[in-house]
């Protein structure tokens, strides 16, 4: 009967529309189990008395039909189809005493159980949402009390805040290069402070490298940071009119000299 429903020749227009609606709507289903539950409704029996064999046939026919219409089904629909084909063969063939594993009946019973459980949870959800709800059917006190106010401040945070904070830190951790170890970073502020105190002695042109702080010249990472900071600080001092700066050619050493206020 169901095979007829999906075979090309003798379907009524209504049946065809129904079948296509089902397929077009495949996005509306929440996965194969949901689809199976919908299909099972056509059997119009108690879910506990459902014919899993019949259901497997319907599902497989559905998948075939979708293929014929060149509709791409998500992988989990195909996995379910393969499993149901296997189940169907188990249910139809006499049990093989050599075979290990659960019998077709056991597998079918479990599928029926899953469907019944899902349906039960949907009914439960509907009943839950159908209950009287706070703010819709019954109400809390609308007005805070304003007598004898003793204001104490308490700080609050939710578990989600906590987890998000931790996630934020750990994510930052994964971008390790971005965080920069503090002990290898020499800031422009630090360089500026150092330069301001030293620049008074720079009467003649001096290599900028000699202004690097002690201990920052050897480790390449530290050296790079200190050089960048010192250079930036030098530019700042030039801008402020305390310093002159020169470089004879590309990549040549950079020289600094104090700029006297009058000149």
């Amino acid at each position, binding site marked *: 009967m169901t095979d007829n429903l999906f075979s090309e020749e003798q379907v009524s227009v209504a049946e065809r529309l129904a079948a296509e609606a089902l397929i077009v709507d495949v996005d509306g289903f929440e996965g194969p189990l949901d689809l199976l539950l919908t299909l099972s409704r056509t059997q119009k029996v108690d879910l506990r008395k459902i014919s899993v064999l019949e259901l497997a046939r319907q599902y497989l026919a559905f998948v075939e039909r979708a293929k014929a219409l060149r509709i791409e089904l998500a992988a989990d629909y195909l996995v379910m189809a393969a499993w149901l084909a296997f189940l169907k063969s188990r249910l139809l063939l006499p049990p093989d005493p050599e075979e290990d594993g659960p019998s077709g009946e056991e597998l079918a019973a*479990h599928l029926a159980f899953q469907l019944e459980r899902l349906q039960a949870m949907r009914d*439960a959800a509907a009943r*839950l949402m159908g209950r009287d709800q706070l703010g819709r059917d019954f*109400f*809390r006190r609308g007005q805070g009390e304003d007598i004898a106010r003793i204001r104490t401040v308490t700080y609050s945070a939710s578990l989600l805040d906590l987890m998000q904070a931790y996630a934020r830190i750990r994510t930052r951790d994964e971008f390790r290069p971005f965080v920069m170890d503090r002990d290898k970073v020499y800031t422009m502020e630090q360089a500026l402070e150092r330069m301001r105190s030293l620049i008074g002695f720079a009467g003649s042109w001096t290599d900028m490298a000699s202004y690097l702080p002690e201990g920052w010249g050897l480790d390449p990472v530290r050296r790079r940071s200190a050089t960048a900071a010192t250079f930036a600080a030098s530019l700042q001092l030039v801008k402020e009119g305390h310093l002159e700066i020169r470089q004879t050619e590309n990549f040549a050493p950079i020289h600094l000299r104090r700029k006297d206020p009058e000149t």
Partner: protein
Amino acid sequence: MSETSEDRTESLFEAPPVAEQERMVEAVLFASPEPVSLSDLAARMPHGSDPAQAVELLRKRYEGRGVRVVQVGEAWAIRTAPDLGFLMQKETVETRKLSRAAIETLAIIAYHQPVTRAEIEEIRGVSVSRGTIDQLLEMEWIRLGRRRMTPGRPVTFVVTPHFLDHFGLESARDLPGLKELRAAGLLENRPPPGMLPISEPRDEEETESGQPELFADEG
């Protein structure tokens, strides 16, 4: 020592009359938009008061009135009678924003708690999207429960007093149809046949189905 016992006797005598205690509970519950626990009540009321008794008297007094004294988990609150909801200006109802997936997930957590994410997915037959759990956590309708003592020690989810308050439930035991569902075996976490030998240590543990844990909240 004699002093303290004297003190205690005195403060026992100082406890206000029951009618007065009832007034106090009435005032506190009226004033607070959120449910108030018995221990909170006891902390505010004069020494020697019996808030449980006072609450019970108050609850009876308000039976059939326009507002009711209701239990929410371990706490008590005053709420308007549901049949008068039509008189009120509705708040924007949060539940409108909830997707079908979120509602189903919520129901599964409520009925199967404590339940792991994998179990929710097993029941729904699809994976639970990231936002769904987040949303329910944010609404404070669910929270993390104890970790399951199975490999990977997955976290579990349980519903909160907020959830109970919203749906007017005294406890998770009062969920509609819970008994019937349990009797029908639909709250069991039955592993698929053939999976049995694989899902090893779970079977040894009583916590396997999750259901026995639901009400036995042993420390």
